[in-house]
């Protein structure tokens, strides 16, 4: 998956959990500004784990608090993992 695809997937997942149209989710806006609470963070995290085959922590969302930062981070994390 490319960084763009990861970003698109994040936006779709956020739109679903926030019940907001995808167009309204700007990739540079902080998650808490979008209204993402901790239970929602867990939900999005689980979706990303499943899609990307990575193990994540909720801390990732606080360390990389926007769609842009998080998809960069996840893209690097995927590239760095040992081949299965």
């Amino acid at each position: 998956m490319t960084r763009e695809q990861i970003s698109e997937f994040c936006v779709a997942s956020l739109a679903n959990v926030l019940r907001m149209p995808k167009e309204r989710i700007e990739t540079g806006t902080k998650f808490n500004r979008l209204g993402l609470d901790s239970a929602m963070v867990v939900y999005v995290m689980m979706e990303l784990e499943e899609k990307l085959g990575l193990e994540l922590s909720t801390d990732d969302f606080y360390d990389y608090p926007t769609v842009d930062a998080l998809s960069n981070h996840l893209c690097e994390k995927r590239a760095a993992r040992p081949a299965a």
Partner: protein
Amino acid sequence: METFRSLVTLLARRAESDPGGRAYVFLSDRGEEEAALTFRELHDAAHALAARLGEMARPGDRAILVFPPGLEFLIAFFGCLIARVIAVPMMMPRRNSARDSSAAILANCEPALALTSSAFALRGDLHARFQRAQLQWLSVDLAPAGPVASAFAEPEPHDIAFLQYTSGSTSDPKGVAVSHANLLENLEMIRVALGNTKRSTYVNWVPLYHDMGLILNALEALYVGATCVLMAPNAFMQRPLNWLRAISHYKAEVGCSPNFGYDLCVSRYRPEQMQGVDLSSWKIALNGAEPVRAESMQKFAATFAGHGFEPRAGFPAYGMAEATLLIAGGNRGAGHVTHTVSRSALGDHRVAAPADTADAQVLVGCGRALINETIAIVEPETAKRLPADQVGEIWVSGPNVARAYWRNDEATRAALQGKIAGEAEQATWLRTGDLGFLDEASELFITGRIKDLIIVRGINHYPQDIERTVQSLDPALRQNCGAAFAAADEQGEETLVVVQEVERTARNRIDLAETIALIREGVTDQHELSARHIVLIRPGSLPKTTSGKIQRSLARKLWLERRLDELTPGAD
């Protein structure tokens, strides 16, 4: 069932009759056993702690309990009961939240002691947050203790066992003073309704500072002599299916959760991750602490039918801390009742047949009054009792209803000493602030609430707290001119709506979209709550009473009807 004078005698009895039986098991985030206590070990550890408490505090003093998930909390809780120190379970404060109710709770209960686990005693911010003159810290660990002779007199039935602070806003918290008698009465009521025995293993993820975790799970299991397997709330939030795996592994009979927990299991369900999981042992899947949704129960039963889940195990229930815990519930294996009613009539607090399918709303019955308890539906303004199938405030009378809030006579009079008009009897009633009706068979249906309270994922939020957060964000947001309330979305989920007036002078200075984002961020950060709808309105347009009180339910009605004087970008 044997009767007990206090929880201290109950624990002694369990330690004597089943010393090697496992009282509590704690699972790691991976689902492996991390710690366990037999009834005897719990008894001895609690007595050893009580001996230490006796040197630091007197009977009747308060001790706050601040623990991460684990078994230490239970030693601390029983240690307090033995030493006759009043336990005050506290929610673990989040590191980054500036505001929570802990300061106001401390001011109300004036604790002499703070108990925590040795690992947590190191967390510096705890001491800062709970800073208070003369507060002595004591750490509790799981190191084995030998038998200790008790130097304490046994508590009397009407002695206060603990304070449950789940009611009241951040600035005005209300601690329900729960006595040993209240607890034992409610534990017996729960035993009869759930039909539990010492073989009824529990698996619980609800936090122990929450009454559902503490009473319905941890204490009820001890009461019937069963094992209670505990997991951390966060472990459940991240891997909800681990709860079901543990139920299967331990062949548990009882698992309880607020409604959202069942939804979470359904949304995380992956058949390939659940091979071999057998839920046929599960007899009571209690659903309470927030509104019960018919659709959630159906979906859960359908999703897990292939794993042997019995739909009749679904057990909707209703309760609150003021009644110790449980107020209404069904009977083991009896299934649940639903009524299809008119959504629009319900909006006007009437029960009627739906006009058409679009108007149909399915209500789940929360069972009937428990043994030795009475539920009445009362017209809240006149305090007159209403007949079956009429919506009114739910009032409760029984030995499980607490006598008082801790040091809050006004709240005690208002909520715990209700009298029904024209009924001369001695009975005093708990006014729940919830709306509902009883059908002809005395089944209770919850339809709404008159108290200003927002319940999300089983946690109570008070609108005053959210409004204060909002108004602190920008001077353009007028003080005391906002309303926060709950409204059900298309899925029937309770969501948060914030309505706020903007100062006339600031109208042209601020960017509406930017202000809304600021509010959303502030509410998320301070309350762990997502505001679905934020509406900025013209000054003076929020409904208030003549004395200046905010009319939240009227604001909600105006919002639902789109009649608020909303500020829109581009308009002046």
